[in-house]
């Protein structure tokens, strides 16, 4: 007789373990267990049959693989957690005795990342364990970057120490530097949530989101301890990734960091990259921003900047509008441009577009000098422009240090990125009135000649399409063309806003649309004619039109309606008209409409047949396959319904536009 098997001794019952059991087994507190799971990348599993796994009735039990938990038992961090616990006990005991100095001493030795921003333990071994190869790490970089970029933009609170934020920011900037140097940024997208970037590193596509630079609203139920645990891990990961990336292109990591520049808001400019080779270090030190800036003693520059800033602030207090402010800036700044006497032509002629010769998209902006206006987001623009080869970017000194030039009137500027509305004519006239005396002062609507003024979206669209877009579309104040996501892969049958409507609508939709057009046209014509004829008949007209519409509605409603039926309907209508003593309106159907109607009928017939065929074929499927088929059909139908909705909306919009025009 075989041995009797007991229930719950083998199989699924042994393979899975609940969270409570796991915590008990590891002798940890729940927060520590959570930390360990986050770092080690251990996640719950869904058993195929919950009943076989547990006897408990609670549906929301979390299960882990027993093997996973066993593997955690050998984790060196476990000991650290226990030490930590012991230490905390000591501190609390000392405090209980009222021995504050002792407690403080313990505290000083405490390895608490929340307090100091830096734990005593390192997560290096976990990084290596979770990502055996570098490519594994790159694959998991999406979340890492999104998280760190978010934290770099958070305000510091008790839950998010300032040190952590500073470290995140530094790591992110270092990563951006790599992307700039290696030209691996591919795409970027301005969404309502923030700016998406996609980079390709060693064949791996990495997509991350950077929120706009606003104070983040923190909704109540966000646990920053959990986020902090993730951030801690991600910081370590990105540090190692950065090291590897820097060394792969022969740069030293970490790059030199200029505290002073950083304090002045230089951001990317605060770093200076160095080659690994010590002998050639001096030569390889790369100018992050631009050569001119480097010669200036940073301290002196800082002083000067401060003074200028003060002056400006004073000025801005007196000035009311932003435009006036801008003027003031220009006045105040020591301008060394020579073209003072150039007549300022409002909306000066646009230079011929510098032809983009190279085929390398990473050198898209290589030959240009950009100037960022005060209201534009400097950080993303600077990053994206540099990543696509731009070497010289100037900006208003309000936007921080590290600009190629703070002088708006610099003659070397080829592109001026501006995001201001065009101010009405009154001011511009004034600008015209005061001529040569204030030649260098540029009015709100006035432009420096010889440069291209574009809105920020131009940069993104250029980058995504890998070509220089025509700047007229993006001129200041112009209605911008829609900004499309570069991440959407065009799938056959899916709605694509870039293609004309005719190219993608279904036959039925096209016919329907044509019919509607024809109907509208006919209605307009008819009313015109009758208006010419008699005014008294206006009422009748309306009624007749109503009747006509009724007919059409019926036609629309009953798709299976036969021609004969419609004829009888027509006849009935005529009879009704006679009874009311009205003129029988002979419905004139022009041949085009008729042919369309026929087409529609044929199409409907075909659709019906197809549906029948489908039904027959479905009958031959097994039950399982039929279910699968129906599911697929459901999702496909949902998608196509959405697409159809979009097409309908677009058709409507286009029609409105046409009517307006």
């Amino acid at each position, binding site marked *: 007789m075989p041995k009797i098997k007991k229930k719950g001794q083998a199989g699924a019952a042994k393979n899975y373990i609940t969270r409570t059991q796991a915590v008990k087994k590891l002798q940890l507190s729940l927060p520590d267990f959570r930390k360990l799971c986050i770092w080690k990348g251990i996640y719950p599993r869904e058993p195929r049959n919950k009943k076989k796994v547990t006897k408990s009735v609670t549906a929301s039990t979390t299960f882990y693989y027993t093997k996973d938990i066993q593997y955690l038992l050998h984790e060196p961090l476990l000991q650290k957690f226990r030490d930590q616990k012991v230490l905390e006990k000591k501190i609390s005991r000392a405090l209980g005795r009222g021995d504050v100095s002792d407690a403080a001493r313990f505290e000083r030795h405490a390895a608490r990342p929340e307090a100091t921003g830096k734990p005593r333990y390192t997560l290096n071994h976990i990084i*290596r364990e979770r990502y*055996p190869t570098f490519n594994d790490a790159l694959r998991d970089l999406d979340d890492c970057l999104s998280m760190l970029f*978010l934290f770099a933009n958070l305000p510091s609170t008790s839950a998010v120490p300032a040190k952590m934020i500073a470290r995140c920011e530094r790591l992110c900037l270092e990563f951006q530097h790599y992307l700039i140097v290696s030209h691996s940024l591919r795409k970027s997208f301005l969404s309502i949530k923030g700016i998406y970037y996609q980079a390709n590193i060693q064949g791996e596509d990495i997509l991350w989101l950077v929120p706009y630079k606003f104070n983040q*609203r*923190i909704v109540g139920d966000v646990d920053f301890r959990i986020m902090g645990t*993730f951030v801690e891990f991600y910081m370590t990961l990105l540090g190692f990734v950065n090291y590897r990336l820097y060394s792969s292109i022969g740069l030293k990591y970490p790059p030199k960091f200029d505290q002073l520049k950083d304090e002045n808001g230089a951001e990317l400019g605060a770093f200076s990259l160095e080659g690994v080779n010590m002998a050639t270090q001096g030569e390889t030190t790369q100018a992050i921003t631009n050569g001119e800036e480097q010669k200036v003693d940073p301290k002196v520059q800082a002083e000067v900047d401060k003074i200028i800033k003060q002056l400006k602030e004073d000025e801005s207090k007196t000035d009311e509008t932003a435009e006036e402010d801008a003027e003031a800036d220009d006045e105040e700044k020591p301008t060394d441009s020579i073209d003072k006497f150039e007549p300022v032509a409002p909306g000066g002629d646009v230079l011929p577009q510098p032809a983009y010769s190279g085929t390398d998209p990473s050198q898209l902006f290589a030959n240009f000098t950009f100037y960022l206006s005060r209201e534009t987001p400097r950080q993303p623009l600077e990053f994206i422009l540099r990543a696509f080869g731009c070497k010289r970017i100037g900006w208003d000194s309000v936007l921080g240090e590290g600009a190629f030039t703070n002088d708006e009137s610099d003659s070397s500027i080829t592109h001026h990125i501006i995001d201001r509305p065009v101010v009405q004519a009154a001011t511009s006239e004034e600008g015209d009135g005061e001529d040569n005396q204030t030649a260098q002062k540029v009015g709100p609507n006035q432009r420096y000649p010889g440069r291209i003024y574009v809105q920020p979206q131009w940069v993104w669209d250029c980058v995504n399409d890998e070509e220089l877009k025509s700047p007229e579309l993006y001129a200041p104040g112009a209605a911008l063309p829609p900004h499309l996501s570069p991440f959407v892969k065009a799938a056959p049958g899916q709605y694509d806003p870039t293609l004309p409507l005719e190219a993608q609508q279904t036959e039925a939709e096209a016919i329907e649309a044509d019919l509607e057009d024809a109907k509208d046209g006919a209605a307009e014509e008819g009313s015109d004619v009758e208006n010419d004829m008699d005014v008294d008949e206006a009422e009748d007209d309306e009624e007749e039109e109503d009747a006509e519409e009724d007919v059409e509605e019926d036609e629309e409603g009953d798709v299976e309606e036969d021609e004969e039926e419609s004829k009888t309907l027509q006849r009935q209508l005529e009879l009704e008209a006679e009874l009311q003593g009205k003129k029988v309106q002979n419905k004139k159907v022009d041949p085009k409409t008729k042919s369309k109607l026929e087409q529609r009928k044929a199409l409907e017939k075909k659709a019906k047949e197809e549906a029948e*065929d489908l039904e027959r074929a479905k009958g031959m499927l097994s039950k399982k396959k039929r279910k699968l088929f129906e599911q697929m059909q459901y999702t496909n139908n949902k998608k196509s319904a959405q697409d159809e909705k979009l097409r309908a909306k677009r058709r409507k*919009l286009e029609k409105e536009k046409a009517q307006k025009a």
Partner: protein
Amino acid sequence: MGPKTIEKKRKVQDPEPESEDEIAPDFDGALSQSEDEFDSDFDDDKEHEQDGEEESGSEASDDEDDEGSLLSDDIPSDAEGDKAMGKLVLEDEEEELKIEIPGVDPKRPEKDDGEKNYRVEKDANGNERYVYDEIDPVYDSDDSDAQEAPNTIGDIPMSFYDSYPHIGYDINGKKIMRPATKDALDALLDSIEVPKGWTGLTDIHTGNPLNLNDEELELVRRVQMGMIPNDLEDPYPETVEYFTGIEEKMPLSAAPEPKRRFLPSKNEAKKIMKLVRAIREGRILPYKPPEEREKEEEEVEQYFDIWQDEVPTEVNPLHIPAPKLPPPGFDMSYNPPAEYLPTKEEREEWEKLDPEEREKEYLPQKYDSLRKVPGYGEVVKERFERCMDLYLAPRVRKNRLNIDPNSLLPKLPSPSELKPFPTVAQTVFRGHDGRVRSVAIDPTGVAVASGGDDGTVRVWELLTGRQVWSVKLSSEEAVNTVRWRPSKDSFILSAAVGEEVYLMVPTHASVTPALEQASRDVLSAGFGYATGGQTHGAAPGKEPPAKWARPGAKLEDEGVLIRITVRSTVKVINWHRKGDHFATVSPSGQRSSVAIHTLSKHLTQIPFRKLSGLAQTASFHPLRPLFFVATQRTIRCYDLQKLELVKVVQPGAKWISSFDIHPGGDNLIVGSYDKRLLWHDLDLSIRPYKTMRFHSEAVRQVKYHKGGLPLFADASDDGTLQIFHGKVPNDQLENPTLSRQGA
């Protein structure tokens, strides 16, 4: 009455009147009330009292007066004192309060400095007597504690009273008598003898007068003199130096100094070495101010090439990497194409939904320039939710088929390709009363026979629908089934009515006399044989399974030639292809439910002694000597030559209604009362190759096309008849392709 009693107390304490000149005259009216309340007994003192009150009233507010009078009590409570002290500290500028403090006279220290507070007098014994000043209790300000002159004579030289026995008058006007002079006193004292040690006290223990002895007197004297009370004790003895700095010549112990006193301690050396080592290894660091240390800690962050010796490892099949977030679509753009913007209704609908139920967590928005884009409020929340998903969401691998759903569908030929098949009703045969139970088309294809509830069997012209022949077999029972004998050399119809099976030769235009004769011969050939057969075939005592007989003259005239009576109601007749045998099935007939009849011998055999389940129908194999019997659940196939069970087909239906064998012989269709039509490939499996459920009611009858077209049909209780296209390929390896042609 509080204040009043207090005033009384005070009066008792210091009965001396205040000086008159301090009375404020304007208080008269104000105090008239209190005046009335006093008893007449106090008449004498009334004025003084009033004086006091008025004085206090003039000096301070009522509150303070209250407090002041309280404080002037004999025994001020601690709390009060404390309070007063507190007041003093708080408001030390106010003199009034200072004065009010009981027992503390601020002016007293000055007095001490200036003169002594006592005077020395001589007592009766001529000893010195210290007469201390009356302690000024410093009461309320209204209590003048100045030493009142006992004599009120004023500033008059005392010599004026030399001639009088009194020296003046007291405050009550009584004479103050001149005190006794020294001489008189001494004389009086001398006259009284005082024993030595007299104290004037009484010993409480003995009751005798307490006298002090000499020793005690000496003690008292010493105490009085401020001397040490006992002569024996020396208050200042010489100090005895137990330890001195003077080295003795002779040591206490003669033992030599031990060696360890000269050697350095090993233990200490160990401790020191430990420290040294710790310092060398950097475990102990020199002290640094905390900020500096923190800075250093920051720089400790060391990165290195962690993937220097990376080895690609095999991916654990159980590991499920976290799915990446989907990339943003067009509708997430800050400036999306206009068609992506929600309409008013869509927006309302979205806002109405719970945040959890929304399909998208955002609404597409359009901003006409980048500077107008606001911050997205949910960034932190969404990231947090992603974090929660990463660590808390159970991961399950779900296989998603990324295929065109149409690829799942079988490739079916279109119905138009499969023609011919009947599409419209061609002929309607009218004539039966009640239900028609069974219909059969003759082997030549010119006539159709039918049997119904009216008990008649009719033969019709197939093309025209004209009734050519009819016979009434029974008046009560219905004709359950009609079947033609499947050979073209005869024109024989079989019909089952109740327990009887009739064999007949109907008249028809196509039936030549020769054919009719041949048919009659076939039927009557067995009569002679039957008698002989029955004698030796069945045991005489046993009832034969069936009786073959002539149906009677009336029916014989109509063309009905043979009546076979079996044991129970016959529902099914099926002929063998050669036309010599036919099988009848009577489901209610227990053991004898299936019977095989031999026409040439007029012999009936019951092949099964025992049958598992109720027999439903039976049929001969079209090509081979096989016999199929369907019970409720299974179809059994028997070899008629070897007389053994060959196969049990299990369609899996609950109740089989009918089945038919493909003319090719390898396929089988089964209809069941549980709405199913099943196709079996006999070579493939005992299980159905295809199950089709297209009817809403039970399937009654199934049939293959006999004319060679790849069609089969089923009839259902729901009133429909479906024709299927089922092509059995010539190639054995290919599976049959089935398609439905519609009802």
